[in-house]
């Protein structure tokens, strides 16, 4: 049976995609799940996966072409099947793009300010959707897609979004979805005419869980393994009032900034000593800062936290986001379980993630799920700056450059290597003193880097 290959919305915000590369030639056999092509979305280069098996019969767009989501771009069918009707249909399939077209089998790329690929799934997993997350466009009722009279049933609408604006779902599926907080419009049904049935809900839940699992790879026994990964802290009246008043004062995230200047003499000595031992021991200042932040966060769960609107979530593990500049923007890949990783592991992982980020090869699960983030503009000669919090995280650290500065020691002016760190804090979660205490801990770590090997 023929399968229409559409430009799929590989992220909720994607409206069009640029076909970077065809991985299959016309005439190539295609199995379900094969990668047909690479598509550049608004965030990353994603794989477009075959939803049916057969032979790639037609490629309807060239490499490098940008196409609206929902447009027919190829046909997979049996070698001898008549696909003329399907190919001819191309001009008619002008249905508005739906993020919902992204099937549950594709991990949708997400805007980096989201922590989860689908607000529906996120909710089901107990992660609150965030304000300001661009929601998939509301589905306007649309005339039923014209089906050529010759089309056999296999080519008729097969998923919910195609069913003329009505979401077909079984009563049981609706109940299960409502209870899990899943948006039924986000799912693709496997029942007759794309009807959403129990199996689809179960699959969506399982996939959400799997996504969480891949996002949090199992690490060698972390300190506190076996304990819950986070603690939700209910809001006291005082905390609610603070949150409300402060939000009214500045923007949705009432941010304040704390700056500290750290002495990096010992960090510099440490790096030099390690570099002397051989190239494999070479680490950057940033690697040491990442390691120090991860270690310090473990001691300050009130900073390693998310603001979830009706509660705060304090994490027992550190998934550290690191902002990376890429040619036309920035992205924050995540070092998962950074608190359990050695300096060498962090150095290697940071380097690999940065490289892949610049090549735009990151998978969504690699840049979602951070508990706190670090941004470093030191290499651009910036002494000090403030970074913007990536919600629902409660803080971000802006690392400035290493500089020789005059310092007073024992009444003498001496030259010292120093670095400025500015912490942006969400005041709803972190009060001034709490942030300051965290920066104190971080100072202890950075000024005595041997603590990091303890």
């Amino acid at each position, binding site marked *: *049976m023929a399968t229409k290959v559409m430009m799929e919305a590989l992220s909720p915000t994607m409206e069009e995609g640029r076909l970077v590369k065809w991985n299959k030639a016309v005439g190539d056999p295609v199995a379900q799940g094969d990668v047909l092509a690479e598509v550049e979305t608004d965030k990353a280069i994603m794989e477009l996966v075959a939803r049916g098996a057969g032979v790639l019969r037609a490629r309807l767009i060239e490499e490098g072409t940008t196409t609206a989501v929902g447009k027919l771009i190829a046909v997979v069918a*049996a070698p001898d*099947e008549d696909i003329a009707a399907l190919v001819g249909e191309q001009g008619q399939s002008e249905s508005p793009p739906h993020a919902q077209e992204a099937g549950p089998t594709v991990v949708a790329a997400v805007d980096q300010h989201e922590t989860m690929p689908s607000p529906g799934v996120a909710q089901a997993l107990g992660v609150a959707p965030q304000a300001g997350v661009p929601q998939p466009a509301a589905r306007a009722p649309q005339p039923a897609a014209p089906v050529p009279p010759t089309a*056999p*049933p*296999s080519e008729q609408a*097969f998923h919910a979004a195609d069913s003329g604006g009505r979401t077909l779902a*079984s*009563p*049981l*599926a609706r*109940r*299960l979805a409502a*209870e899990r907080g899943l948006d039924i419009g986000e799912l693709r049904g496997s*029942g*007759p005419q794309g009807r959403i*049935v*129990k199996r689809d809900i179960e699959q969506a839940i399982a996939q959400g869980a799997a996504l969480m699992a891949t996002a949090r790879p199992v690490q060698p026994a972390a300190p506190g393994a076996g304990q819950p990964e986070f603690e939700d802290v209910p809001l006291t009246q005082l905390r609610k009032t603070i949150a409300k008043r402060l939000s009214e004062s500045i923007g949705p995230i009432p941010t304040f900034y704390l700056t500290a200047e750290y002495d990096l003499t010992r960090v510099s000595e440490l790096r030099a000593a390690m570099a002397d031992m051989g190239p494999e021991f070479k680490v950057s200042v940033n690697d040491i800062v990442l390691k120090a932040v991860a270690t310090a966060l473990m001691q300050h769960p009130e900073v390693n936290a998310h603001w979830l609107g009706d509660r705060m979530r304090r994490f027992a593990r550190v998934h550290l986001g690191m902002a990376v500049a890429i040619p036309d923007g920035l992205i924050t890949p995540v070092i998962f379980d950074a608190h359990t990783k050695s300096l060498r592991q962090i150095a290697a992982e940071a380097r690999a993630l940065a490289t892949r980020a610049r090549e735009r090869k990151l998978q969504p699960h690699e840049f979602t799920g951070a508990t706190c983030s670090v941004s470093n503009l030191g290499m651009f000669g910036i002494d000090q700056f403030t970074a913007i919090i990536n919600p629902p995280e409660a803080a971000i650290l802006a690392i400035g450059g290493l500089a020789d500065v005059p310092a007073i020691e024992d009444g003498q002016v001496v030259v010292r290597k120093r670095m400025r760190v500015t912490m942006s804090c969400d005041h709803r979660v972190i009060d001034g003193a709490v942030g300051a205490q965290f920066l104190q801990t971080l100072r202890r770590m950075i000024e005595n880097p041997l603590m990091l090997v303890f």
Partner: protein
Amino acid sequence: MATFDVLILGGGPAGYVCALRSAQLGLTVGVVEREALGGTCVLWGCIPAKSLLESAGLAEKLKHAAEHGISTGPVTLDFAPAMKRSRAVSQQNSKGVEFLFKKNKVTQIKGEGRITSPTTVVVKGADGKEETHTAKKALVIATGSRVRGLPQAGLELNRTTVLSSDDVLVLDHAPKRMAVIGAGAVGCEFADVFAAYGSAVTLIEVAPRILPLEDADCSAELQRAFKKRKIDVVTGAKITGTKVTDREVTIDFTENGQARSVTVDKVLVAAGRAPNVEGIGLEAIGVKRTERGFIAITDRFETSVKGVYAIGDVAGNQMLAHKGSREGHVLADLLGGQHAHPVNYGNIPSCTYCHPEVASIGLTEEQVKAKGIEYKVGKFPFSANGRARTSGNTDGFVKIIRDAKYGEILGAHIVGQSATEMIHELVVARENEFTVEEVDLAVHAHPTLSEAIAEAVLDSMGKMVHA
């Protein structure tokens, strides 16, 4: 020598439906069958047995004729005409399949088939001549199953005193004394038929209850009805010895530890069926089998050999005609390039056509418990149903088992007149994932037996009206 797109071994409910549907989708189809068309269902199972059960039901009804002011004079019971009627019905149905084959241009190949390669079947005709036929697209094994004796209990089928269900279908009289070994659907149905025709029937079951695959409440209700009709129901039996002569059979057994013995004129062995996997060339092409001896298949009916498929009893799962037909239909759709939904083996209705009938869909209460699902039960007796009272058949009940939280209908069990017809409301409900609420919202006509379903559903929600 002929070549077909689809070559099917076996013309039973799985094979013939697959053949018809494939032909309707434009494929050329050949069906190899050694008997008449229709398989066990049409020839030696469903159809003739139901015909006899209809006769048995009438015999039972006549006992109440006087209540309706109908005088019949003394009623005599003769099994032979009922048997002949059942054979005629069976033949009519078989001819019907033949007609459909002609109409849809399916080629019937008479003879015994043996697979010689994944694409070829050698068919030996009645005249002993052999012919090779080739399958271009698919070779489908739908050879079904057959009755088997109980040699391990000394009850080898001998066609005179130890009989299979095939044999009893052509008996020319109802034996005075009869034992039925195995109280599954087949055993219960024949116990019912022969009891109605005056045989003294002993129904012997190894499991602790009759219809062991049905919900325990259904087993108990049917057992009560059978006992009322003087059928000697023995459960938890262990056969300790048998003596078979050409005139009678003595069976020694223990009933819940107590030693007993019955001597009967005929024994019907109704304990299980075996898949027809021998002598059809499976070994020649290396078709893999399951531990229980069935052909192993995927959810697209593919065997371990590419291009070779298996459907129906021979492919395991429920050994039921309607399961086989559905498999045949879905396989044909797949072969014809249609979109097909896989067979939902969790939603195959099960029906026993004795009096009262027993029908069910989904899980039994025991199974729900074992799965650890939180559930609620709703039950409504036909004794409280107006329509059942008018017909005088007030045995039985409707039992609904629903998920406590979501209202999903986990199982539905009906004992009573027309249970096998009524069950489909719940089959449709389950297939479409309606919860108990949707079933309640659907207005049920009055007076009907189906109102008992609505009431049982309400009961499961704790709000039965006619309580």
